[in-house]
């Protein structure tokens, strides 16, 4: 116990800026500034945070200190929300914002402490960071009364999310489960097969690679309407856009991967009299795996962008792109933000799943090696 106590580094002094907060106004009511002693709940919360800082050495472990300080941070983030609920105006409340700023600096220490703790608690760090960002977004947009057209607070987005859950699910199914998934599989699959073909037939590679540069320079907004004209409103046109966007990244990455086998490794296969296909399966494809995953990861984000943008140019009345374009026109920015949140979450999950699979499959690669 005492050893882990010793191991904890000294806290940087920056969170102490909040000690200056009582000198400045904490809120305003009908144009008159209110100070901390006039706001009993804020006073209690502030005292809680300061007490947490003062008592931080008492818990026996880093985890204990982190939890104590986290309570202090939570109190600070609760203060503006409570004051808003009581009908106070906060845009001039310098003391309150100093308090919140100090608490945010305190959160820094909490995260640093958690990063040093072993076990599953470590994972709480990133989650806390994300949560704090959302909290600050909420506090700042409401405290400074940012117009919801510009940036709605997350609580509003969440409400919109709940109110439109059925629509959002339909959009998700149409855009992600139908268009993106099919387009992605077709595009990546075709790019991969073409790479294997181009690797066998060198003139094909020489002809295709310049074309690849050309295709990657073509803007989505240019091809999307054309594809909608060719393939109609439904998922086929979205999938076509995605195929155009993902084909060449996959082709180029696979080709580079197939060429990454070293000469001596190829000589070994040759010395065993192994033919083309056996060499491909036992040497060149394993060598290409890191490159393949690179292509797949790049394409996962490209596919999502492609589908959403393509839906701007015509779609059955469902889909994430359709939702964004119609709700922007109606000034329902909260629904737009909810859709954006779904898209961002989907993109991160796709990418994360691929990264996880990569780590599992290519654990031998120098970038992942562990003893």
């Amino acid at each position, binding site marked *: 116990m005492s050893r882990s106590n010793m191991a904890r580094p000294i806290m940087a002094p920056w969170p102490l800026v909040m000690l200056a907060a009582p000198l400045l106004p904490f809120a305003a009511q009908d144009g008159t500034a209110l100070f901390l002693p006039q706001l009993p709940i804020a006073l209690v919360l502030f005292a809680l945070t300061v007490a947490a800082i003062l008592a931080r050495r008492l818990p026996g472990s880093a985890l204990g200190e982190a939890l104590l300080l986290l309570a202090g941070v939570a109190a600070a983030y609760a203060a503006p929300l409570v004051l808003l609920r009581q009908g106070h105006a906060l845009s001039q409340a310098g003391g309150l914002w100093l308090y919140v700023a100090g608490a945010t600096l305190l959160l820094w220490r909490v995260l640093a402490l958690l990063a040093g703790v072993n076990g599953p608690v470590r994972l709480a760090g990133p989650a806390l960071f994300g949560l704090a960002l959302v909290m600050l977004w909420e506090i700042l947009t409401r405290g400074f009364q940012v117009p919801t057209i510009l940036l709605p607070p997350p609580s509003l987005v969440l409400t919109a999310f709940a109110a439109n859950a059925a629509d959002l699910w339909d959009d998700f199914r149409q855009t992600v489960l139908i268009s993106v998934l099919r387009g992605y599989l077709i595009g990546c699959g075709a790019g991969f097969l073409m790479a294997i073909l181009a690797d066998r037939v060198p003139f094909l590679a020489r002809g295709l690679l310049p074309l690849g540069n050309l295709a990657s320079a073509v803007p989505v907004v240019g091809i999307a309407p054309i594809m909608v004209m060719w393939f109609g409103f439904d998922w086929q046109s979205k999938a076509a856009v995605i195929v155009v966007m993902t084909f060449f990244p996959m082709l180029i990455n696979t080709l580079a991967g197939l060429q990454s086998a070293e000469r001596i*490794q190829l000589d070994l296969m040759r*010395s065993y009299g192994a033919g083309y296909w056996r060499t491909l399966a*036992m040497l060149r494809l394993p060598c290409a795996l890191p490159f393949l995953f690179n292509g797949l990861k790049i394409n996962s984000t490209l596919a999502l962008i492609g589908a959403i943008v393509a839906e701007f140019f015509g779609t059955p009345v469902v889909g994430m792109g359709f939702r964004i374009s119609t709700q922007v026109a109606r000034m329902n920015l909260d629904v737009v933000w909810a859709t954006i949140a779904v898209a961002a979450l989907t993109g991160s999950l796709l990418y994360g799943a691929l990264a996880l699979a990569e780590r599992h499959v290519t654990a*031998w690669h120098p970038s992942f090696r562990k003893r």
Partner: protein
Amino acid sequence: MPAAQPAPLTLVPPAADAAPRTIVDVRNLTLTYQTADHPVYALSDVSLSISKGDFISLIGPSGCGKTTLMRVVADLEQPTSGEVTVNGMTPEQARLKRAYGYVFQAPALYPWRTVERNVMLPLEIMGLPRAERQQRAREQLDLVGLSGFERKFPWQLSGGMQQRVSIARALAFNPDLLLMDEPFGALDEITRDHLNLQLTRLWLGTRKTCIFVTHSIAEAVFLSTRIVVMSPRPGRILDVIDCDRDLPRERTLDIRESPEFQRIAHRVREGLMEGHSYDD
């Protein structure tokens, strides 16, 4: 024939003596690498005949074409002119029949395969059943002193250990012809002595034909029936020294102290220095 085993120390009469069968025949071999700026003359008019059961060491200064010569025999490099036959076939036919095992100058292990699965690679290609693959891999790893490392990955091993894995891999499919390019170059003296002993025993027991590249004169004399001394680039054969006449086939490490051994070593050194003499 069963998998290569460390042979019991019984002297096998060299059957090849009666009617020496030529395994590798190199005639007037010349090889020029066409590089971007200027041609590199790697081998010039090399002729060499290797009989079954021979242990040939190639020795010569760095860059003289030893690896190149082996690669031609292995059909990994095409000669500019000259004739090469392996087992009476062209090198390509011999390669497709898996006539030789090649230990490359670098380990050339596949990093996504464990040590054991690296050794099993040629056996997989030859289509051996799983149980036999595993058994042979274990035997060979044991022979090179690496049992217990089957499940490790190559990058978790030291350079010398990796090279031993590649030796085990070449031995695993029991080829009659072994091409070994500085297999013990990265090893310490003691391990090297140990593996030299293992190699002579293996060679005596199985009567494989070996072509062996080394920079160590002592190693060459200890292992070989004949030593081929090569000149600096373009590689030519300066001298072929017969060790079989003066040294017994069955050798132990203390033979290195004998006067015959010293005499042969001296002659190899002379040959090497002759090749270098124009430098001065």
